[in-house]
């Protein structure tokens, strides 16, 4: 069985597909084969994961409870 060989240049463009598990099994296997032999892409993938984790830690804007309740009251009054 021949498997499509992936180079780093293509790997980096398919990282999100990989993370989203949105590839057909052959595509995923090719990504994994590349990962097994490429430390640089393994690092790139980890950094994309780290990026996602950090973006997820950005704080929500603070909304004063009083302001929110006033809004809810105003809306209800309509």
């Amino acid at each position, binding site marked *: 069985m021949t498997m499509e060989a992936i*180079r*780093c*240049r*293509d790997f*980096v*463009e398919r*990282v*999100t*597909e990989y993370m*989203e598990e*949105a590839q057909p099994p052959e595509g995923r296997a090719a990504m994994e084969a590349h990962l097994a032999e*490429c*430390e*640089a*892409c393994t*690092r*790139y993938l980890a*950094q*994309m994961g*780290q*990026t*996602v984790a*950090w*973006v*997820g*830690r*950005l*704080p*929500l*804007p*603070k*909304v004063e409870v009083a302001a*929110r*309740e006033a*809004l*809810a009251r105003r*809306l*209800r009054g*309509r």
Partner: protein
Amino acid sequence: MSANPEAARLAALQAGDAAAFEALVAEQHAGLLRLARLFLTDERLAEEAVQETWLAAVRGLERFEGRSSLKTWLVSILMNRARTIGKREARYLTIDFESEDFDDGPTVEPTRFYGREEEWDGYWREYPAAWPNQPEAEALSGELLALIEASIRRLPARQRAVILLRDMQHWGAEEVCNALDVSETNQRVLLHRARAAVRQALESYFEEQP
């Protein structure tokens, strides 16, 4: 009556249940505001967009059939409000909703890989530099948070909306497709481009650190 909590909630809202409405506002308001702020640079206009979203929601609740979830419905309304406000006050709009198209160039600078005529065509010339350890439990520095936020702000509108909903608000891919009316593939392409740009901003930041 209904086994579906979302349907039960919608029924309560449509029946004018005040507590249900307050709970919805409490749950969604800050997220809507965060989204609005990414589209409108003026704080007052961002708040106006969110207020108008809530007003439109109150008016539209009766006719809302629950084909999408409440939160995706609210975000669709907000996107429309931001668009309308942006037409009126263009200088505060950070994007042009109409003209923006998909950019399909590479997300990693092509010169970082060996070129077509070289022996190692397509492989990294140099490994991406390792990042300093940031303990999971430790709060990210204000500087790092500001950098991430600024890099998101520089993204084209749809990429910005997708990364915000997926990675900041933790929505599923399908919910984002519904709220923004993009295909599954486009959603993923937008997410990829957005994440790659933020990763690159982080890499550049760490490179400059002593």
